[in-house]
């Protein structure tokens, strides 16, 4: 009899992370409109509920009750499978992200993380590279030229930017010496030392990763797969009702996950400034037990991580409503002739600095 690991506290953590990703993705649709309205000096959604807070709910009701349309000549099974796959791959990568340090109650200690594996970074990278299948399959199964073009664009764009993204990750790996996201987070804050988050050591790598993250999540200025000025609606031209909803939704889940990954890799994850001083203050001045002080710090760290994530999500939306879209050949040139050489240079530079003992 095998013991299922999903029956312990991990299942609770995974369930909470799952629910949180969906909740955050839901309110991203609201935040996107509010931020768009703010940046364009408009009012934005304010009809449904106070400050329009019930707008996502109204949208969901609309999506669910709309007509479900299958285009003629479409491959029905794959047409349904596409959006499902997009959603599954979007939700999968949050399993390995450390949302908090360890907590302990008596003798029971647990991590605020779904699964702690020593290939966490590779897992995220692998799942991100699978994300394109949902778009490709949906676009192809629609039996529509514009959808197919959107799918092809998505595939070539993702493959091109994955390379630079992977090489940016390699530079992080060279510094940390581990693929475990928890280890990488813990290394970014050593007690009694100045907080050296990886952004300090890897500014160039972070910029490369950020640009690639925009391309991998199909966000403006790289949203060529759904470029409505050229391709009607791109890969989801033929989609309606909740299947379209799943595509739009998976984009926001992807943004959430990629923001979390960037926070963990470059911005210290669940670490926040003066955490050890704060813990010692609780223990020494307030007379708390070490374990309960540590639990409080862990919870504060989780809040800090989410603040970082929200800052990144805001950044994604800010960019969307500020920059126009690239042309397709510009996108390819940026990926292959600028980002990849820069990423190789970054690896060499990191290696040199490590040898010189600077970082």
């Amino acid at each position, binding site marked *: 009899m095998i013991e299922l690991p999903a029956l312990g506290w991990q299942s609770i953590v995974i369930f909470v992370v799952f629910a949180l990703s969906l909740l955050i993705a839901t309110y991203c649709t609201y935040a996107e409109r509010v931020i768009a309205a703010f940046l364009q000096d408009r009012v934005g959604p304010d009809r449904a509920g106070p400050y329009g807070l019930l707008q996502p709910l109204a949208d969901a009701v609309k999506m669910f009750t709309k007509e479900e349309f299958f285009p003629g000549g479409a491959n029905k099974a794959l047409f349904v499978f596409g959006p499902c796959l997009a959603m599954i791959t979007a939700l999968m990568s949050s399993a390995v992200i450390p949302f908090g340090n360890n907590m302990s109650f008596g003798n029971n200690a647990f991590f605020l993380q779904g699964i702690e594996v*020593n290939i966490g970074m590779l897992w995220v990278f692998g799942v991100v590279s699978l994300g394109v299948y949902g778009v490709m399959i949906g676009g192809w199964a629609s039996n529509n030229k514009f959808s*197919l073009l959107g799918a092809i664009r998505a*595939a070539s764009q993702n493959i091109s930017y994955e390379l630079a993204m992977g090489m940016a990750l390699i530079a992080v790996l060279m510094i940390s010496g581990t693929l475990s996201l928890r280890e990488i987070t813990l290394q970014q804050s050593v007690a009694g030392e100045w907080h050296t988050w990886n952004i300090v050591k890897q500014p160039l790598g972070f910029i490369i990763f950020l640009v690639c993250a925009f391309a991998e999540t199909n966000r403006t200025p790289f949203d060529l797969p759904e470029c409505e000025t050229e391709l009607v609606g791109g890969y989801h031209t033929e989609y309606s009702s909740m299947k379209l909803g799943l595509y739009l939704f998976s984009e926001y889940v992807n943004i959430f996950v990629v923001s979390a990954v960037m926070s963990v890799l470059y911005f210290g994850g669940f670490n926040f400034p003066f955490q050890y001083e704060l813990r010692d203050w609780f223990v020494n001045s307030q007379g708390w037990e070490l374990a309960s002080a540590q639990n409080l710090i862990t919870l504060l760290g989780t809040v800090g991580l989410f603040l970082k994530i929200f800052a990144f999500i805001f950044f994604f939306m800010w960019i969307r409503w500020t920059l126009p879209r690239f042309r397709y050949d510009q996108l390819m040139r940026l990926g292959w002739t600028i980002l990849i050489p820069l990423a190789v240079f970054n690896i060499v530079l990191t290696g040199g600095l490590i040898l010189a003992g600077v970082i």
Partner: protein
Amino acid sequence: MSPLFLFLSFVALLSALGVVFAKNPVHSVLFLILTFFSLSGHYLLLNAQFLAAVNIIVYAGAIMVLFLFVIMFLNLNVDTEPHKPALAKIAAAVAGGSLLLILVAALKDVHPVGVTGTAFNSQIGMVDQLGLKLYTDYLLPFELASVLFLVAMVGAVMLGKREVGERNF
């Protein structure tokens, strides 16, 4: 045998059969991706996490995307597929069958040597152990393989280079 192993083997064999028997080439590619996933599951059962992740990234994440890409462009349908003559089909079946026969005959008496359950290092599949092994015991093959990749990359760049006077847009 653990139930997980049986399940993964079942999925792997079924999806591998699906690759061969699916009429639609896109379905074939999707079955092949499922096969790679179940193979990665096997690697995980063997405690080879790095290999499992790299298998997903390289094969399922990159190579199969390009496969799907090409097949979508070709727009292969059952109607447009040319039917091979019966002789070619029989010859293919005989050749494939004899290869299977030889493989089974060669492998059925194999006893793995050099590894015992007690002396086996169960951590060998972890990424740091694997890296150490590659860069100490297998340094030359590793470097030769990277030269091969370099040659392939240069070749791809050569093929994709713009000819003199050619304009694409």
